[in-house]
Structure formats: structure tokens, C-alpha cells
């Protein structure tokens, strides 16, 4: 293997491991929601909104509305303020990719 190929292979490995770490971080963040919203967003019943399979932009919009106060809530206005926009984006993508409950 020549030096260039090794360089490319290394760069790919590094970026793959970064992507892996990002995926794990999104998964870990999403797990802070699952006490109420179900494991991987598959909530039981609909009193607490199931998040699995919900389109990412809907989650992002809802969280922004909770944060701003535009959407009244019992507790979500207080919890949404604990997460940065970047974190909310990662959460939303994670839940959107989860299969909904059967």
C-alpha cells in the first residue's frame, strides 16, 4: 500500500470513528427522553407523545416552540431549555430514524 492510500485509509477510519462517536452521543441524548417517551421513543399510550418515527423537522419545530413559550406545556417548556439547538437536531434525527411502535 502506498503512502497516499494509507493516508486515505487513515482519514476514512478517523472520520468513521467520529461518525460512530456522534451516533452514540445522539443515542445517549435520546435516552434522556425515554423515561417518559418510551425506549427509543416508543411510548406506551399517547398521553406522552411517542417520538419514534416522528419527522425530524416536527421534533425540531416543537422543541423550538416549547423553548420560546409559543407552545404551552406542563413540563416540556422547562426541559426543552436544557438542550442546545445542536443537541435537539441530533435527538430529532435519532428519533426520526427509529421504527414506530407496532
Amino acid at each position, binding site marked *: 500500500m502506498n503512502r497516499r492510500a494509507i493516508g486515505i485509509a487513515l482519514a476514512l477510519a478517523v472520520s468513521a470513528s467520529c461518525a460512530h462517536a456522534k451516533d452514540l452521543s445522539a443515542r445517549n441524548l435520546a435516552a434522556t427522553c425515554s*423515561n417518559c*417517551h*418510551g425506549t427509543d421513543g416508543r411510548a406506551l399510550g399517547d398521553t406522552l407523545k411517542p417520538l419514534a418515527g416522528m419527522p425530524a423537522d416536527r421534533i425540531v419545530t416543537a422543541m423550538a416552540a416549547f423553548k420560546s413559550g409559543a407552545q404551552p406545556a406542563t*413540563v416540556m417548556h*422547562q*426541559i426543552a*431549555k436544557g438542550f442546545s439547538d445542536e443537541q435537539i437536531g441530533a435527538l430529532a434525527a435519532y428519533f426520526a430514524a427509529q421504527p414506530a411502535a407496532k
Partner: protein
Amino acid sequence: MTMQAVSRVSRRRLLGGGVAAVVAAPLLGCASGRDGPSIGRVVVVGGGYGGATAARYLRLWGGAIDVTLVERDPSFVSCPMSNLILAGLAQIGDITRPYSGLEAIGVRRVQGDAVAIDAQRKEVRLSDGRSLPYDRAIVSPGVDIDAVEGLGSAAAQQQVPHAWKAGPQTLALRAQLEAMPDGGVYAITIPPAPYRCPPGPYERACLVAHYFKQAKPKSKVLVLDANPEIQSKKVLFERAFTELYRGIIEYRPNNELRQVDAATRTAKMDFDDIKVEVLNVLPPQRAAAIARQAGLVNINNRWVGVDWQTMESTAVPGIHVLGDATFSAPLMPKSGHIANQHAKVAAAAIIQRLKGEPVEAAPMMVNCCYSFVSASEAIHVASVHRYDAGEKTMKLVNGAGGLSSSANAAEARIAQAWTQNIWADTLAI
């Protein structure tokens, strides 16, 4: 599946015969056959909100990982919601759930009493002589209560229950409340903080008062608090005490219990003796005995210090500690909800350590606790916590979290839904 069916299945498994059991044992935790070679063995001590969640998430996230859960009780009994039983609003079966969901996802459950951990040999020892080897251990033992002068005997403890671990004591206290004649006084003593479930005693006062209002309207509730003020959801409980239960609940701060005369149900305080019809003493608390035995207790001679990035003990490497036994991060309560969150941080970190990968740089935790103030209304306290690498602790995220604006019916329904969802998340139901 009914509980009976579950126990029949496990009995059949146990009766499977010596040879089969020996052959099956190494295969049990593994699922390794399917998922590839095992990345390691984790033994979890304690099947409450912390330990059960850890077992569940190790299997969910870890793939081929051997997970053994040691728990002395045959099923999970929830402390959250147990105060409803005291008011006659729930039965013990409503707060009891099986461990069969965890077994179905490949957790090996051992019903037994963990009495020692040998961190050198990496073994958890049980009272029956069995020992369980581990690569990493999780200890989620809950709290033990201090001895209270006058409550040494089993008879005295039956006469004056704490009911701070849900189960037989909860039922004993309910029976006393039911037997109490109208016009009697129920007193609850609250220990100095920190103790398990900061809002729990005040919720209990409200729910007992609710029961009295319906069934024994001449009766009173006396709250004797060692602390200078209500420890959680203060304005909301104050409102409940003075509005919903005016003339029923009396709250006395700075009242620390010194001694009990169980026979006469008398609480001996600094300046007076208070004799009541039903006496409910919540003794001071500390990390449970196994934590002390394992050398984990290193803060205030009561609690376990942890590295908040991984939940690993700061005293004994290789052992992660969860839940009420930990020395809490600033403004983090000892709650079932937060124990579940501790467990997820620990599970992620253990899997990453076993795989030789870096651990999460800045873990987050959310707490959300509901308390009922009556049969139909509840209140919450919520907080969001983020790991601060500089200060090496979990810190409140500024501007997030808070209380209900007032007691309300919507949150009573949400609290019930919370219960179903957290039990499912914790127990893989």
C-alpha cells in the same frame, strides 16, 4: 403473561436438571452465539430503578455482553406511586412488575442477596456462598436506614413503620391508617436531608390527609420535619397544606426526632413528647450495606462518590454505582427517575470501556418527579443536568427545569403515564 405463568416458566427452567443447567449457564448471558464473542461480563447488584435500567441498556446497547442481575426480591416494587396505596387509591399489585422482560432480552437474573464484593478477584459474593465473576460491576443498592433509639426490635418496627421501601411496610402502614379511629393523629417524621425522594414525605402527608378528608374527617396529619423548610416543590406543597388541607395538616419545621417509644407511639423530640395514633418514622439514610462492605462509601461516611462521566466509583476502580447510594451532584435529587438516568450513563460508559472506545464527553441527565397532592391532582419538579468537565460534576443547565405553576389534573394523568413508560423503559416490559 400473568405472574403465575412467569413463575411456572422459571420453575421449569430451574428444574431443567443439573447437566442441562451446567451446559446452559455459560450460554445464558451470551447471546454471544448470535451476536459474536462476548465483550465482557457485567454483574449488576440491585434490581431497582438504577440496576434494572442498567441491565436493560447494557443488553440493548452492548450486543454480545454477559449481564447478570442480582436482586433479592422476586419482582420489582416501585417506591414512586406507593404513597397512593396509603390513601387507598392503588393496590400493591398496581406498583409491582415482573423481571421477566429483562430475562427475555438475555439478562441472567439471580435471585439472591449480594453480601460482598472482592474487587481484587472481581467477584460478587452472595449469602448462599455463590460467587459471580465480573469484568465490571454495577452497584445500585439503594439506601439503608439508621437505627433509631426505641426502634431496635422487629415488633417496634412493625408498630412504627417507615414504609420508605415499598412492599410489606407500605401495607402495614395502610392497615394502621385504616384501623385508626376518626379523630386520631397520624404523624410523619422527616430526617435531615439528603434522604431518598425529597418530595415523598410531603406527598405522603397530602395523600393521607386526602384519605382522612374522605373517610375520617376529624383526623389530623402532623409533619415533623428535621429540616428548616419543605425540601422539594415548596410553594406547591405549602399551598396544598394550607388550601386543600387547611385544619388537617400541621407542618412543623426544625423538629428532629431523637427517640421513639414504640409501645405508646410517642415521638420524642428535643422539647416535647408527641403521642399519636399512627406514627411513621423516616430514619436518616445512607448507602446500603453492600456499598460499605465493598469499600465504596467515601463521602460523609454515608455516600458513594462517583465520576459523573461514567458513574464509576471514585474509591474502587471497576465498580460503577447508581441511584440513591451516590453522593448526589449539586441539586440532583435521589429519585427513581434520576437513577434510571444514572444507569444509562453507566451502561454507555461500560460498553465503551469494554470495547476500548472513548466515553461520552459530556453526558446529560434529566429528572422529572411527579407528586400527587390529591386523588385527582399532581405537581412536578424537573431539572436538566450536564456534565461539566472542568468541575468534574453534573451541573444544572441554567434556565431549564422548574415546578408546576399549580397543582392540576393533567399532571395526575401524566404521572400515571410516566409510571407505565418508565417501568417499560427500566424493565423491558
